[in-house]
C-alpha cells in the first residue's frame, strides 16, 4: 500500500507540492492527470528519491516503510520503480550490461540468486520480444541514439525485468504510436496482480483505455483537486481542465496537444 499524506515538497525553495494526499491499495492502478507544471513529475521524483526535491511536510510510506527516509536504491529494493518522463542516456554503458547489473543488484539485496549471463540474456530476449524491441538495442549504450519511442520501451523493458511492486509511470505514453502504446500497456498489465500497484501519470485518456485504472486523480497547483473512477478521464478529455484548475479556467485540452478521440 502506498500512502501519501499531506505531502509538501519544494524545488530550489519553491513550493511545488502543497499538501498532497493519496492512497493506493495493493493490486490497484491509479492514474494522475493534470495540466503541465502542476507537479506530477515532482511527485514521482519525490517518491523515487531524487536529490534536490525537498520534502517540507507530510509523509509517504510504502508497504509500511517510510519511503522518504530511504536512499533511491533502497526504495528500488523495496519495489519502487520510476519510468522516467525523459529517460536518461548513458554513453559508454551497454544496455545489456546495465540491465544485468541492475537486476542482480536487486536480487543480491533481496537475498535471491543472481542470474548468470546466459540466464539473463534468455530472460531479456523474451521480454524484449513482447515489447517489440530488437536484440540490437541490448548492444547499444543505454538510450543513446534511441528514438523517443525506443527510450520509453526501454524503460518498460527495465520494468518488466525488475518486476517492481510499485510502478510510477511518468508520461510513458507520450510520443508513442498506438501499437507501441498497446505494448506498453501489455507490459504493465502483465504485472498486475494482488502485489502490484501503479501510479500512471498521463495526459491522455487513450492509455487508460488499455490500462484501466481503479481511480483517476486530477493534480493541479500541487494538490489533488478531484478524484473519481475511470470515467473521470473521459470527462476530462472532453472538457479539459476548466473548473479543476485553481483560479484560471481553461478550455484547451491539457497541454494543447491533439487528443485522440
Amino acid at each position, binding site marked *: 500500500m502506498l500512502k501519501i499524506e499531506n505531502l509538501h515538497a519544494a524545488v530550489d525553495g519553491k513550493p511545488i507540492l502543497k499538501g498532497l494526499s493519496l492512497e493506493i491499495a495493493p493490486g490497484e492502478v491509479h492514474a494522475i492527470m493534470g495540466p503541465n507544471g502542476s507537479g506530477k513529475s515532482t511527485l514521482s521524483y519525490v517518491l523515487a528519491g531524487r536529490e534536490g526535491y525537498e520534502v517540507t511536510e507530510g509523509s509517504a510510506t510504502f508497504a509500511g516503510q517510510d519511503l522518504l527516509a530511504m536512499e533511491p536504491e533502497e526504495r528500488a529494493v523495496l519495489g519502487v520503480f520510476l519510468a522516467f518522463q525523459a529517460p*536518461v542516456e*548513458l554513453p559508454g*554503458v551497454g544496455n545489456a*550490461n546495465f540491465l544485468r547489473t*541492475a537486476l542482480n*543488484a536487486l536480487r543480491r539485496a533481496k537475498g535471491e540468486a543472481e542470474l548468470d549471463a546466459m540466464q539473463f540474456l534468455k530472460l531479456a530476449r523474451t521480454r524484449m520480444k513482447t515489447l517489440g524491441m530488437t536484440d540490437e538495442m541490448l548492444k547499444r549504450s543505454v538510450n543513446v541514439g534511441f528514438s523517443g519511442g525506443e527510450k520509453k520501451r526501454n524503460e518498460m523493458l527495465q520494468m518488466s525485468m525488475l518486476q517492481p511492486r510499485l510502478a510510477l509511470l511518468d508520461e510513458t505514453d507520450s510520443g508513442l504510436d498506438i501499437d507501441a502504446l498497446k505494448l506498453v500497456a501489455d507490459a504493465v498489465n502483465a504485472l498486475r496482480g494482488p502485489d502490484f500497484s501503479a501510479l500512471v501519470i498521463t495526459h491522455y485518456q487513450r492509455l487508460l483505455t488499455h490500462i484501466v485504472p481503479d481511480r483517476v486523480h486530477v493534480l493541479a497547483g500541487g494538490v489533488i483537486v478531484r478524484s473519481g473512477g475511470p470515467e473521470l478521464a473521459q470527462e476530462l478529455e472532453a472538457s479539459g481542465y476548466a473548473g479543476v484548475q485553481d483560479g484560471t479556467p481553461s478550455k484547451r485540452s491539457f497541454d494543447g496537444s491533439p487528443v485522440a478521440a
Partner: protein
Amino acid sequence: MTAVASTGAAAFLGRHEGLRNRLPGARVAWVEALRERGASAFRAQGFPTRRVEAFKYTDLAGVAGQVFGEPLTSVDDAPALPDATHPRAVFVDGRFRPDLSTLGELPFAVRSLAEALPNLEGRIGALARPEDAALVALNTMLFEDGLVVDVPAGVDGGTIELLSLAAESERAPAFHPRHLVRLGEGATLTLIETAEGPLNARYLHNPVFEIEVAEGARLSHGRVQQEGREAFFLSTVRARVAARATYDNFTLNAGARLSRNEIHVALTGPEAQAHMNGAQLAGDGQHLDTTTSLDHAAPNCASRQTYKTVLSGRSRGVFQGKIHVHQVAQKTDGYQMNQALLLSEEAEMDSKPQLEIYADDVKCSHGATVGALDADQLFFLRSRGIPEPQARAILVGAFLTEAVEAVAEEDVRAALSRALDAMRARQGLAAGLEEA
C-alpha cells in the same frame, strides 16, 4: 665511494661524477661524450622549477628533495612476476634481467642496451636530446640499461611486453633506463609496457624512449603506469613517424605519488598518423601529469588525441597538449580532446591545450571539459537498485571507455582494460558493471 646524503640536482651530478668509470660504456669515447653532454645540460637546467613554463603545474621539488640510494642496483632480487601473455623482457630497477625474461625466438632483434651499447653510436640521443629537456639530460648522464628493439623492414613483430619492476628494498633507488625502438619500412609491432613496483616503496623511475617508425610501419604502444604510491615516475617518449607510418600510444597513468608522462611525437613524412590516447586515475595524494606535443612537420598527416582524467580525494591532474603545425604541413587533420572528471571537492585539474598553426589549409580542433559526475545519470542508476558506490564506478568506467575504445590494437586494448580495472579497484572505483 660512499654516497653522500645530498639531494636535488647536485646529488645526481655527484653520482655521475662518482660513477663515471663504472657506468656502461665508461671507456667508450662517444658514450663518455654523450654522458658529458647530459651532465652539462643537467648542470645548466637542474630540476625544472615551476617558473619553467612547461612545469607550471607540476612541481618537481618533491623529487628534488629526496635522498635516493645507490643507483647501481644489485641483480639478485627476484620479485614475484605477474603472468606474461606474450614474449616479455623484464627489467628490475632499470636493469635487464635475462633470467626473468621470456623472449623466446623472435623474428627480430631484442637486446639489452648495456650490452649493445658500443654499437649504438648516433642512435642514443638522436631523438631525445639532453639539451632539450632536463629529465632527458638526467637520464642521459646516468642510464645503465634499456631495451633495444629492431624490427627489420617488412617484418610483423607481433606483440612483446616490456615489464619494469622496482624491487622491494629500503634503498630508494633511482633508475633511468633508456629504451630504443626502431621499426623498419612496413614493419609492425605491438609493444605493451608496464611499470610497477611495491605499493609503499620510494623510488625514482625515469625512463626515456626513443622511437623511430619508418615509412609505412606501424607501432602500437600500450603503456601501463601502475607504480607504487610512493614512487616518482618521470617518463619521456620521443617518437618520429615517417611517411604513411602510424604510431599509436595509449598511456594509462595511474600509479606513483608524482607522475610526469611526456609524449612527443613528430610526424615527419606525408600521411603519417599518430593516435595518442590516455587515461589518468589519481587517488588521494597523487599528482599525475600528461604532457604531449605533436609536431606536424609534413603534409596530409593526421593526429588524434583523447585523454581522460579521473580525480578523487585530494589529488591533482594535469594535461598539457601542444599541436604544432609547420608551414609545410598542409592538409593537416588534428584533433585533441581532454576531459576530466572530479570526484571530490579537493581534487584539482589543470589543462592547457595549445595550438600553433603555421599552415593555412588545415583542420585542427581541440576541446577540454572538467566536471563532476552527472547527477541525473547517478540518480537513474540508483533508482534501478544499484548502490551508490557501484553507480559511481559504472559512470567512471563509462567516462574512461571512450579513450580505451579508441585503441585499435586488440592486445593493447585487452591489456589496458585489465590494468584499468585493477587500478580502479585500488582506488575504490572497482568496475561496477557486470558483463552480459
